[in-house]
């Protein structure tokens, strides 16, 4: 359970060495110790565990002004799970009510329907008023992915493996092209794809709000559907959905919850799609594609050790396609799910360093798996295209 009390020891592991200053995107903008993991851990302990200080507006701001990007945890020599502790603290402070009722209703609908369509139509106007559909979000596609692909997509000959495809909200409504590329590339490489019915949002937006009940609600829909698939692996194109299924969904369920074993089974099978393909290898050699691209590493990538390099390694199979590395490929872009809507100026500042780095490369194609990064970067890169690595591979195959 993402219960703060379970993290007392983990919080105490923070030795205040301050090494998190090197990679916290918020600290690197604000230059204020208060907005740094070590202070957050210390304040959460002092306010919510020991009760030395009261819960104030400023304390809530310190809690909210965190991207949950996990960069600090990666840097931390003691591996303190800062994102989970902040989420648990938000849960304690907000009790699922971090947003006003209108926004909560919208979010719930968005998550239940896997995408933006719930925010359009009548509710759309309200959503717009609430600042929920800013320019940074791509307009929803005319036909969501789920209306285009369903059920089982078989290979021509005998398949060497079968995978279930978890289609995240963004792919479903904003980027169905990514979903198409995932299916086409897998099938082209002799892997059968099953798209299980009844999927909903992975729960990440609710986790960010500390809304544990809503995380669980999503888990209760997703886990049975995914666990019931007779497949070799479950793939996702989104690094954040992957993080949820790999390490957060299980933790979000009570210890004795009957769903837990199935959630664990899903965790054992979840793969990010480029990582999966790189792992099993391509059976079809991609034809040459003269294209120079750069790669932005999504922050939510440490749930499996090979994910860091998977897209580079996989696309390395395309003759003539050239990767131009960023100076800091692992530096956050500032999107942080919906963080950029809550802290516009701050996110803008974080993004500007990323954009400068991207422009320096001269590459016309920017690749990244995270749909939040993708839409947030896209609006300021009009002269470049920003897409998922799998799309480039599909292009090479001419699919």
């Amino acid at each position, binding site marked *: 359970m993402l219960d703060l009390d379970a993290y007392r020891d983990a919080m105490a592991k923070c030795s*205040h060495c301050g*090494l998190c200053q090197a990679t916290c995107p918020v600290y690197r903008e604000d230059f204020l*110790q*208060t907005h740094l993991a070590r*202070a957050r851990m210390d304040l959460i302990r002092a306010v919510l565990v020991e009760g030395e200080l009261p819960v*104030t507006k400023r304390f809530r701001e310190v809690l909210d002004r965190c991207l949950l990007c996990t960069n600090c945890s990666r840097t931390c020599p003691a*591996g303190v799970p800062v994102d989970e502790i902040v989420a648990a603290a938000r849960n304690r402070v907000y009790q699922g009510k971090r947003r006003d009722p209108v926004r909560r209703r919208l979010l719930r609908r968005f998550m239940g329907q896997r995408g933006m369509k719930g925010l359009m139509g009548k509710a759309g106007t309200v959503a717009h008023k609430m600042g929920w559909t800013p320019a940074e979000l791509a307009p929803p596609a005319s036909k969501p992915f789920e209306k285009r692909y369903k059920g089982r997509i078989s290979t021509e000959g005998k398949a060497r493996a079968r995978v279930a495809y978890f289609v995240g909200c963004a792919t479903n409504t904003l980027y169905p092209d990514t979903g198409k590329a995932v299916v086409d590339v897998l099938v082209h490489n002799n892997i059968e794809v099953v798209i299980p019915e009844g999927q909903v949002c992975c729960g990440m937006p609710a986790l960010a709000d500390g809304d544990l009940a809503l995380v669980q609600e999503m888990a209760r829909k997703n886990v049975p559907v995914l666990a019931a698939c007779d497949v070799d692996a479950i793939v996702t194109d989104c690094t954040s959905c992957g993080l949820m299924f790999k390490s957060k969904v299980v933790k979000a369920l009570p210890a004795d919850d009957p769903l837990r074993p199935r959630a664990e089974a899903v965790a054992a099978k979840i793969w990010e799609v480029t990582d999966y393909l790189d792992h099993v290898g391509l059976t079809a050699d991609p034809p040459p594609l003269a294209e120079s691209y750069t790669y932005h590493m999504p922050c939510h990538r440490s749930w499996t050790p090979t994910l860091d390099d998977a897209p580079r390694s996989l696309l390395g199979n395309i003759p003539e396609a050239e990767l131009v590395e960023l100076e800091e490929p692992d530096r956050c872009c500032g999107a942080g799910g919906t963080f950029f809507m809550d802290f516009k100026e701050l996110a803008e500042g974080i993004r500007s360093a990323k954009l400068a780095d991207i422009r320096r490369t001269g590459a016309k194609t920017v690749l990244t798996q995270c749909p939040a990064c993708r839409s947030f970067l896209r609006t300021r890169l009009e002269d470049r295209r920003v897409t998922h690595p799998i799309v480039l591979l599909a292009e090479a195959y001419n699919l």
Partner: protein
Amino acid sequence: MKGLAKDLKRLVASERVRTDPEDLFAYSADATYYIKRGRPDAVVLPENTKEVSALLKYAFHHAVPVTPRGAGTGLSGGCTPLRGGIVLDMKRMGRILDINRRNMSAGVEAGVVLADFHKAVKKQGLFYPPNPQSMNVCTLGGNVATRACGPHGVKYGATGDYVMGLEVVLPDGSVIAPGGLVSRSSAGYDLTHLFTGSEGTLGVITKANLRLLALPPAHRTAMVTCETIEQAGEAVSEILAGGTLPAMIEFLPRMAIAAMNRYITPPLVTEGKAYLLIDLDGTRDEIQAQADQILGICRRMGVLDIRVIEDEQEAATYWTARSNIGGMLLAMMKKAINEDVAVPRDRIPEFVREIQAMASTLSRVVLGIAGHAGDGNMHPSIFFPEVNSDAENEAEAVIRKVVRLGLSLGGTVSGEHGIGFHKAEFLHWELGEVQIRLLKRIKKAFDPKGIMNPGKLWKEGR
């Protein structure tokens, strides 16, 4: 302090003056937070020397304590605000002003992060050797103020050896620039190096001119597994006396290796009682000659294992693991106190042996030792499996014993971290009352009202 925030907001932009309890809490300590905290009345983030000067003038006039702060990675409580007042966060003064290839020097603001500086000079084929293991975050101002050192110390010396000149704001707000851009000067008392290591007690360092070297063309890392601590100590002495000067030579105990193995593949054998992590630099030929000599010595001594890591990226994992030891060990413990007693190089084996004897008598805390063996800069550390008053008492008693031992071997209470509040009493042991009185008079000459970082260096403040 009534009206303080309002006054300060007249001197710097209001968003750079912080007085919310949460912000004051975040600035209450450095990496020694579990020993002691303070509570400032305000946190101010100046952006230039003019602002620092205006702030100090104000503080001087109203006798408000001022504690300068870099990245807050200090290990002796240097930037912990013991008497309230203003904490001056220098991180916003983070510009590298110039890198002068022809003079082999650079001008920086105090808040520049060391690793950023390393990167910037490296781009020009230059090299700034000091590398405290907090280098990814600590500031050059903090390094100068503590005379920080690191593994490179054995070959290249400490921060102080690279400071050519400073810009300092004195407590009354006046700005001076001792030293300059020359690498030698015999012009009167060496104020430049008096501020170097002054731990924020004499004034605020706003800029520094630092000496640079040419970047060594190549590196190679080696890990030596020694059967005993004596063997490791003897190997260090033999290597250095034999004319090989490694860029780094780190002494690591078995306990550290167990933690480092999380980063290293294949993991190191843990049969050794002591390990030496060595970095060689120079031209390829120089490195080869040094490596041959070291291998010869180690084989002759019958060490358990020698691993040479040719690949630079792989070698980097060893050094990353090295800099993360403290934090990693802490992941298994509840609290740690890091000391930095330095002893003459030839006394290292004796020092380590005695420390281990002490360690075996402890029941509530764990005493471990690692260090920059090349220059005798050792790090005895106390780890707490549980925190309670018995453990605290045992820790305090053993720290005192360790410090006395270091002094009796002709060492110093602080090789590189500085005194802060944590070692104030020990400084009395090392210097004696005559020297302490002299230090206090020097302090008074610079800071007649005692506003700069009060409560540090010696007992009873001022």
